[in-house]
């Protein structure tokens, strides 16, 4: 048995090294970002971004603290929109994916196609904009951040549908029906509890989409009180891009937020998810524990 333990240890060691390399490749650039947000502005422009800046400064964060109310508000909006949007997304996605996964549902191919087709054909921004603003009047309301595009997407539906078909045995569903359970009860009591990994996956994807989204704000919001954190960051970045390319910019002379401030906003846009994500990871624990049992 000692031999087995030794080779298992070597195996785990190699796994750790490789995964650690991947993790570092992801963390180091982010670390650079954080350091840049604490670097003095002139040093940043003069010497570029570096892991060892010659001069530190917390000016970027001072500026953010001054803008505190706006940033706080943007955080609030982002959290609210992400939470509500993701919850609704999961409900809609699961409910439409389930029938598509049932081999005994006669029209499943037709509706699979109907769902999937939306990934291929796109009417473009203008028709969507006209519909959402003229018909549903979501412009400058918080619904503008929730409804367009992100509330459900075909990708999530197909992932869930596949998971249901391959991981929820039909026998279980039949057994529930024999026991007298209706379809809804079967879905909520039998299918969903078995599908935690895919619910967590699609939920995560949806949460990240909502968190990162800035185009909905760009198109549908002019009222900056409704801006999400990404909208706030993007507004600054696009203002700067405008200045560097426009014929009008020679007339403008205004103090634009420095590089450090842009980095700082990017950092604070990422930190909450980093902090909260490990708590949601427990839905993966089941599988990860099983992996541990294996060892």
């Amino acid at each position, binding site marked *: 048995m000692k031999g087995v333990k030794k080779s298992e240890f070597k*195996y*785990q060691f190699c*796994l*750790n090294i490789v*995964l650690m390399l*991947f*993790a570092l490749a*992801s963390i180091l*650039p*982010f670390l650079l970002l954080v350091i840049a947000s604490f670097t003095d502005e002139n040093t940043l422009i003069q010497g570029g*971004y570096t892991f060892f800046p010659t001069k530190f400064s917390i000016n970027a964060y001072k500026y953010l603290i001054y803008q505190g109310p706006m940033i706080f508000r943007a955080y609030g909006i982002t959290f609210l929109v992400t939470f509500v949007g993701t919850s609704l997304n999961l409900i*809609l996605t699961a409910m*439409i994916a*389930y029938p598509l996964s049932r081999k005994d*549902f*006669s029209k499943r*191919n037709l*509706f*699979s*196609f109907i*769902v*999937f087709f939306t*990934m*291929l*054909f*796109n*009417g*473009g921004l*203008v*028709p969507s904009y*006209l*519909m959402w603003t003229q018909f549903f009047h979501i412009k400058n309301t918080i619904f503008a951040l929730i409804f367009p595009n992100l*509330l459900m997407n075909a990708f999530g539906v197909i992932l869930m549908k*596949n998971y249901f078909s391959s991981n929820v045995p039909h026998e279980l569903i*039949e*057994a529930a*029906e*024999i026991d007298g359970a209706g*379809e*809804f009860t079967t879905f909520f009591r039998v299918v969903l509890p078995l599908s935690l*990994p895919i619910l*967590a*996956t699609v939920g995560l994807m949806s949460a*990240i989409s909502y*968190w*990162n989204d800035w185009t909905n704000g760009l198109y549908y919001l002019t009222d900056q009180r409704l801006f999400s954190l990404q909208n706030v*960051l993007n507004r600054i970045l696009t203002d700067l891009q405008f200045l560097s390319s426009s014929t009008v910019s020679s007339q403008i002379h205004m103090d634009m937020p420095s590089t450090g401030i*842009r980095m700082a906003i*990017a950092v604070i846009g990422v930190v909450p*998810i980093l902090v909260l994500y*490990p708590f949601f*990871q427990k839905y*993966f624990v089941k*599988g*990860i*524990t*099983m*992996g*541990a049992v*294996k060892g």
Partner: protein
Amino acid sequence: MKVNNIKNNTLTVTTKKRKRKSELAMYLFMLPGLIYILVNNYIPMGGLFIAFKNVDYSKGIFHSDWAGLENFKYLFSSSDAWIITRNTILYNLAFIIFGTILGIAVGIMLSEMSSKLMAKFYQTSILLPQLISIIIIAYIGYAFLSADTGLLNKSILPKFGIDPISWYSDPKYWPIILIVVNLWKGLGFSCIIYLASILGIDRSIYESAEIDGAGKWRQIVSITLPLLKPTIITLTMLAIGRIFYADFGLFYQVPMNSGALYNATNVIDTYVYRGLLQTNDIGMSSAAGFYQSVVGFVLVLLANFAVTKLDKENALF
């Protein structure tokens, strides 16, 4: 299950009624989702006609004159047409192939970790790039690739005795750079999707394989990969449907919109943006979207047809 064959007659009636109730329930389940995609996706599809209009705002979009195929011309008429098409397709193929291999590999590795704390840590870290805005990623890229202050030119290349390279002026490095950046950003998601599927596999299969003497590699090849096949096929087919669309942020922001790199970085989406920046012609941009949709659609139909022939179970529809 096998109870059904006791008394066929009575059971047939109840079975039929139950089946009808069940079908109705299925429709009810789908209703909210279907309403959403009707509103969000299908109604706006009606706007595809804009691609064929010469938009005159004084007449309004609906009453503007028809333009035939005029709005499509710019996508085919210049020598760039071949370049942008080639770039879009080749990059997406590379993303699909490398992204799939890497996603599966990392997903498997994560599932094999015995320390769940470390697995959590790795997974969170790898997800990190997904959360950073692409413009910021472009800045980070600039931190590495800037000609005079970049980390590569200033600190790393001199150690190997290589002269500084003008990264933003030389197209030949960019296919690799863009593929690496795209993989780096997307790995977090893709490994989670494969991980979720792997976690759904019954552990006892692995245990019995181990008892039979199968090594790790054998287990992966014979158990994990075949069971992942549906997921792989699905994801690949979805990607093929999007093969004519490019990630605008990746191809515009990361190369810092540098003209010298266009031969390697210009894709359909960036070409449309740059071409229409001055005139902002919505007919022409709608035509580009239409073109991309049609090609993607045809390719997916072909791919689905091929998959149906080989492995009917896993076709998308």
